[in-house]
């Protein structure tokens, strides 16, 4: 029984069409035409408890609209949605007990208060029994190293410290599901790794389901096994990271440094991805031609100083999907070893 399930989820926003100029402004006083914008459409999700999924898409793709519907803030235009067995917007408060939310760009901690007071107030809001609260507080304080600044006003904390505080705040009431929106944004490498470690541990130890919305695909690679790609309001990929790598994985990029700036460069069987002075990037299908064969072809025609092969990473795969759209590739020939 999946913990989150949506079927044909759709959200349409109606706004008043504004005509330009003074005449336009006056005319809207008398007769209004509405324009409709479909924010999300045909979203079908099915998440099991304990999963960690990455929810990825360009800005304006519909990610936050989906999250708002899942958290009960926004009412869908049509379609069904169930989170932990209840319909979020119908039983908002009950749903709220089951979820925790971390917005990377906006803290939920109270700016002027010492960290401890924020936790205290949240405890009261969520109605966490005192002993459970103290237990959780101690636990998260230990693994996130919060004790040092429990008495510091939140506005004096660094971004990394504040983010750790936000995590603890989101987990205090033992939510079944946690929505993380850009949790590592703006953090340095060390802090990012700490947060990722924490997410991973929480998922492992408590079986918390995690929905991770992020632009940093390293987060996704590190933490989730499944990703959902959304673009222009529809889900274009919903499956495992592995499968995505395999489907796009037969492509490689060969980077060649030429010894002189040849006026023309072309190689049969490989696609010229980019050319900058003496650096050339070639994309080739490993299933059709081996790297060795390609390098031989290149050196036959041109003289080179250096060569390297780039494996496809999630970043480049996703970028390509944004640009080209996702299409199920033809079944790959057995890969050459």
């Amino acid at each position, binding site marked *: 029984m999946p913990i989150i399930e949506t079927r044909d989820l759709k959200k349409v926003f109606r706004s008043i069409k504004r005509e330009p100029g003074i005449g336009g402004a006056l005319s809207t006083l008398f007769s209004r035409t509405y324009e409709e914008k479909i924010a999300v459409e045909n979203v079908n999700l099915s998440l099991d408890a304990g999963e960690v999924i990455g929810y990825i898409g360009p800005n304006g793709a519909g990610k936050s609209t989906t999250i708002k519907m899942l958290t*009960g803030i*926004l*009412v869908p*235009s049509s379609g069904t949605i169930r989170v932990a067995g209840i319909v979020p917007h119908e039983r908002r408060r009950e749903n709220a007990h089951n979820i925790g939310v971390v*917005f990377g760009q906006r803290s939920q901690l109270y700016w002027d*208060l010492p960290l401890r*007071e924020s936790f205290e*107030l949240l405890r*009261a809001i*969520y109605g966490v029994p005192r002993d459970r609260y103290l237990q959780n507080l101690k636990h998260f304080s230990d693994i996130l190293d919060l004790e040092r600044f429990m008495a510091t006003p939140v506005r004096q904390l660094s971004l990394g410290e504040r983010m750790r505080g936000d995590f603890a705040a989101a987990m205090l009431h033992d939510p079944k599901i946690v929505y993380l929106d850009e949790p590592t944004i703006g953090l340095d490498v060390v802090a990012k790794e700490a947060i990722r470690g924490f997410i991973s541990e929480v998922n492992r130890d408590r079986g918390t389901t995690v929905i991770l919305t992020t632009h940093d695909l390293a987060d996704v690679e590190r933490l989730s096994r499944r990703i959902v790609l959304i673009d222009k309001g529809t889900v274009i990929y919903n499956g495992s990271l592995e499968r995505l790598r395999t489907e796009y994985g037969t492509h490689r990029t060969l980077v060649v440094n030429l010894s002189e700036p040849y006026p023309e460069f072309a190689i049969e069987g490989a696609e010229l991805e980019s050319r900058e002075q003496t650096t050339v990037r070639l994309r080739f299908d490993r299933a059709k031609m081996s790297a060795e064969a390609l390098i031989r072809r290149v050196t036959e025609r041109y003289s080179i100083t250096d060569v390297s092969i780039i494996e496809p990473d999630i970043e480049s795969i996703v970028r390509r999907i944004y640009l080209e759209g996702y299409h199920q590739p033809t079944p790959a020939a057995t890969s050459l070893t």
Partner: protein
Amino acid sequence: MNAMLDVYRVYWRINILTTLEYRANFLMWFAFTFIYHGSAIFALWIVLHSFPSMNGWDFKDMAFLYGLWMVGHAINNTFFSAIGDIPEHIRDGEFDRLLVRPLDALFQAITMPGQIFPDELLLAITYFIGAAWLSGVHVDALFIVMVPLIMLGGALIDLAISLIISTAAFWFIRVDTLRWIVLELEQEFTRYPISIYSRGVRLILSFVFPFAFMNYFPATFFLHKTEAGLFLPPEVGLLTPIIGVVFVVVAYAFWRFGLNRYQGVGH
């Protein structure tokens, strides 16, 4: 609900602690409160010094009138002032944050801790006692029972207006100027007996923005004022608590309407 009481308790604890910590700031704001009300009373005194009677009301009557308004207004400022911050929450996304938590969003907005202290309320009550004594108003059982209720009713009227303005933020985003103007006009119009205004304005102040019920009608009753052109019997001043409740209910209905629309119900 238990959670609400718990939150309310924590809210006040944090308020008081924060106020005590930012003492200098608190003193500054108290000075402002003092001067805000003080200059109004002082202006009344100056004017009535040269013009002793305003439609039959003298300075002592006007001082009492102001005091009645002041306490109701102060009750609202002390317990519900956070409602004025709701438009900012809507603007910066904090309001969505409130909707994600398992507690009524309006209640959460009201109980956002800040530097809230009942100094204005204490000042108002002290002032009122002094003004009541000075005016020689007859203090009987009815007075003792009804006046606190009237003040609460007045606070509800103030609260309702504030809530309506905040609800407008679901549509208009920036309502600070509107709020400021309404507050200023409220203070200025309620300073004087409404009998000095034209009929249309009197009706507006009685039934559209019922500020007249905050202080004028109750004062007319307790001070036994009889004026030509009074279009309602003075006993109407005792209805203030009911008017307050009705107005709050209307404002709350408007709030729920705005909230539903914000959440996309019916789209």
